[in-house]
C-alpha cells in the first residue's frame, strides 16, 4: 500500500491533478476565513461587472460572486465527496456480495444492478428531487449517491468473480476463515486500487450531477453551490444581459475540479491497471 503511494507520487498526471485539487481546496477553505462576510448579503446592484472591490462582479441579487464562488465550490466538493462515498460503499457491498457469494444471490443482485444501469440515473434523480419536500445539500448528496452506484457494483463484481477462484482464496477457505474475513483480507486488498479510482470518479460525477440538478432548480435550498449559482444566472437571463461573470467562473470551477479529479484517476489508472501500465 505504502509502496503504491510512493509510485503514485512519481506519476506526473496524478500529481498535477492532486496539486490542482488541493490548491483549490485550500483557496476555498482559507479565503472565507479572511473575508468573513455573509456570502448571501446583497451588497451591490444586479450584474455589476468585475472591479477592484468585486473581483468577479455581482450576481442577479447583487451578491459578491467571488465570495459566493468560494462557498459554492466548498458545497459542491462536499456534495461530491458524500455522493462519492455513498456510491462507492453501496457499489462495493453489492459488487462484493454478488461476486463472491455467486449463485442465486449473484443473479438477483446483478439483475437489480442492470435495472439501475438501464434506467438513466439522472431521471431517477430528477424524480426523487421533485418528490421530496426538504432538500438540504446532504439529502441531495445522498440521492446522487444512491443513484450512481451501479457501474462500481458491476466492475467490483467482475473483479471479485475472478479473484474468487484464486489459490489464496481457496487456501483461506480451507483454513476455515469466515466469509466476511475472506472478503476483507483476501479480496478487498486486490481491488483496493480500483475502489479508490472509482471513488475519485464517483466524486467527480457527483459534483457534475449536483450542478446539473441544481441548474434545473432541483438542487438544495438555502445554500450556495456551483449549480445553484448557474441556475440563478440562467433564471435571470445573465447570458442575455451579457453578464458572463455570473456563470463562466462557476462553470470553469466545475470544469477545473472534475479535470483535476480525472487527472488523478488517469494517473492512478496508468499505475494500477496492468493493461496500460508502462
Amino acid at each position, binding site marked *: 500500500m505504502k509502496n503504491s503511494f510512493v509510485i503514485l507520487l512519481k506519476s506526473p498526471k496524478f500529481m498535477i491533478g492532486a496539486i490542482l485539487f488541493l490548491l483549490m481546496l485550500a483557496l476555498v477553505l482559507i479565503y472565507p476565513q479572511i473575508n468573513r462576510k455573509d456570502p448571501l448579503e446583497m451588497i451591490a446592484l444586479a450584474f455589476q461587472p468585475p472591479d477592484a472591490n468585486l473581483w468577479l462582479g455581482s450576481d442577479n441579487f447583487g451578491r459578491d460572486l467571488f465570495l459566493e464562488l468560494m462557498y459554492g465550490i466548498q458545497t459542491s466538493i462536499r456534495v461530491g465527496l458524500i455522493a462519492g462515498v455513498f456510491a462507492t460503499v453501496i457499489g462495493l457491498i453489492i459488487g462484493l456480495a454478488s461476486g463472491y457469494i455467486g449463485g442465486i444471490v449473484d443473479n438477483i443482485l446483478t439483475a437489480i444492478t442492470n435495472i439501475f444501469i438501464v434506467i438513466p440515473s439522472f431521471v431517477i434523480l430528477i424524480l426523487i428531487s421533485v418528490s421530496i419536500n426538504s432538500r438540504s445539500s446532504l439529502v441531495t448528496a445522498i440521492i446522487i449517491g444512491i443513484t450512481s452506484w451501479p457501474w462500481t457494483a458491476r466492475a467490483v463484481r467482475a473483479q471479485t468473480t475472478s479473484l474468487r477462484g484464486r489459490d489464496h482464496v481457496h487456501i483461506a477457505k480451507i483454513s476455515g476463515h469466515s466469509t466476511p474475513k475472506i472478503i476483507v483480507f483476501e479480496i478487498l486488498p486486490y481491488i483496493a486500487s480500483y475502489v479508490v479510482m472509482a471513488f475519485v470518479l464517483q466524486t467527480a460525477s457527483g459534483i457534475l450531477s449536483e*450542478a446539473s440538478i441544481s*441548474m434545473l432548480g432541483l438542487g438544495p435550498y438555502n445554500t450556495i453551490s456551483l449549480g445553484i449559482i448557474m441556475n440563478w444566472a440562467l433564471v435571470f437571463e445573465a447570458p442575455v*444581459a451579457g453578464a458572463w461573470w455570473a456563470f463562466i467562473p462557476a462553470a470553469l470551477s466545475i470544469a477545473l475540479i472534475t479535470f483535476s479529479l480525472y487527472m488523478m484517476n488517469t494517473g492512478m489508472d496508468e499505475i494500477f491497471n496492468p493493461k496500460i501500465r508502462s
Partner: protein
Amino acid sequence: MNGGILMKLKLASKPLVALFMAAVLFAGCESVQPPSATEPPKTQEENKTPADTSTKEPAKEPAAESAKGDAKETPRNETLYINGLQWGAPTNFNLLSGNSAFPISYGSSRELVYETLFMINELNGALEPLLGTKYEWKDDTLHVELNKDAKWSDGQPFTSDDVVYTYQLGKKYDINWSSYWAYISEVTADGANAVNIKLNKDNPNKLTVLDSIEIIPMLPKHMWEEIEKKANNDLTAIRKEVNADPVGTGPYKMYFYNDQKITIVRDDNYWGQSLFGKLPAPKYITHVIYKDNAAGDLAFKSGQVDVSQQFIPQVWNMWKNGAPIKTYLKDAPYYVPGSMPSIIFNMSKKGIDNVDVRRAIAMSIDYKKISDLAMSGYSAAMEPSLTLNTEAESKYVDKDAIKSLQWTTDVKAANDLLDKIGAKKGKDGIRVLNGTRLGPFDVECPYGWSDWNAALEIVAQSAKAIGIEIRTKFPEAPVWTNDLQTGKFDIIMNTPAGGVNPSQPWSRAHDIMYSKKVAPIGEMAFWNWGRYKNDKADQIIDQIPTISDEAQLKSLYTELTKIWLTDIPSVPLMYRPWLFHTVNESVWKGFPVEGDGSNIPPQIAMDGAGIRALYQIHN
C-alpha cells in the same frame, strides 16, 4: 415505458435539454394511452396533442385567402406584431375549452375577435361602452342597454338573446365565468336591445356583477347552439371543438395560424365603425410564438415586434441608443401598477402568530431592493395599504388617517420592537420569544417565477438582520398551489385578487381578510390562505358591495385598511404592472403615453379600453 424518449434523454448533454426531455417524458407517460372517445381527456392532454402535429390552417379558411401561399406573409407596414400573450403552439380558439389561444384567451386581448359589453380602463377604472351603451342599477337589477348597430362578423345582428345565452352558458357548464352565477340570480332579455341582470338575494354583490360585464366575451347564440347540439350538451365534447374560424363581433377575424404564429385580419365590415368613427389602423395583427422571453425581447428590440407584453429587464436600456421604444410612463416605474404580490402569514404558526413579530418582519424588508433587483425598478415606493396608488383606487382611502400605521423599511425600529416584546437573541443570533425560536420559517413560491424568487431571497436576507430566520423554498408550482390552499405553510407568496376590474380594491381586501366560508387548515381555501379572522373586517367586507355612496365607501375602506395595517395578515412586497405594455415605434407610431390627453390605457393596444390605441396609431 417509453424507450425512445429515454434514449434521447441519455443523449441529452445539457441539463436544460434534459429538463425538457423530462417534461416530454412526463407528458409522454400520460398520453401513451390510445385516444378513446368515451374517456374524457384532461385539458392538459388536450393542450399537448396539437403541439406535436405540424402546421394547421383554419378549417373554414376563405378560398380567396388560401391562395396566397403557405407562410401567409403579410406586409410589414400593414401588420401589428405582438408578443408575450401566447407561449407554445395554439391548440384551439374555443373559449369554453379553458385553454384557448390568442386572441381568444379569457381575460386577455379581450376586444379583438369576441367583444365584451364594456371595456375596462385601467387608468381610472371606468367602464367604456362597446357592445353595451350604458348600464344602471335599478334596485337589485343591473339594466344594460345594447348597441343597436352591433353585428356578428357573419352579418347576423347582435341582440339581447346572445347576451342571455352567453351568461347562461356559465350557469349550464363549469367554465370561466361560472363563478359570477354565485352573485346573479337571473339574466333576462328586456326587448331586443337591453338585458337585465338580477342580483342573487343571498349574495348581493354589485361589484362582481359589474366585473362580469367587462370580462365575459359575448358568443353568438346561433353558432354555439349548433356546437352544443352536435356535442349533445356535453361540456367535454364541446371543449374538443377547435373553433378555427371564430365568429365574433370584434374588428378582426382569424386569418392564419400554425405553431409559430397566429395572424388575424381586419373585418372591413366591422360594425364598430359607427362607434369609433373608423376602422382600426393595422390590417393584420400577428402574434409570433417565441421560444422564451429572451427570444421575444430580442425580436422586440430589433423592431420585429411592435407591442410587447413581456417582462423586459432594464427596459431603459432598450431606448438608450435612440431606438424608438417607449413605455407608458416616461420614467420609473415605467409601468402602471395593477396588483400587489404579497407574503401571507399563517396566522396559526407559532412565532408569527405574534403581531409584533409580523410588524418587525414587515419593517425589516428592503422594498427598494426588491423593486430594483426583482422588478428592474418597475415597482414604485411601497406605501402599504389595501389600495393601489392609482387614480382608480387611491380615492377610497384617507391617506392621512392611515399614515401613522403604515410601515417603512427601518431595521433599527424593527430590532427595537423585538427587544421591547422580550425576544432575546440566542447564541446563534436568532431571537427566542417566550421559548419559541423565531425561525426557521419557510417562505414559499413556485420555482422559476424569477421576480418572486428574488423578492423572497431578499425577504430572507432582510429578516436575518433582525434575528429572525426565514428560509426560502421554491417547489414546483402545483406543490405551491396545494400548500397555499390547504394552509400548509409558514409564510407564502401570492397575489391577492390580481385583476384590474370594478370590484377592486374590495376583491383584494376580500382575498386577504374575509374569513367566512374559509375551510380550516388542511382543507382547500380559495382566499384568506393564512386563515386570518376578524369579525369587524368580515362585517365591513360584507357591507361594502351593497353601498354606492362614495364618501361612505371611503370611510369603510379606510377603516378596513386600518384593521389590516394593525393586524398585518399580509405584507405587500411590490407593485406589479397588470400588463407589461412596451411599444416599439419603428413601424407603428402614436401609441398612447402618459399625459397625451387621450386617456387610452396602456393595455397592449388590444385589451379592454386599450384597443382604442388601434384607431390612433399610424405608419
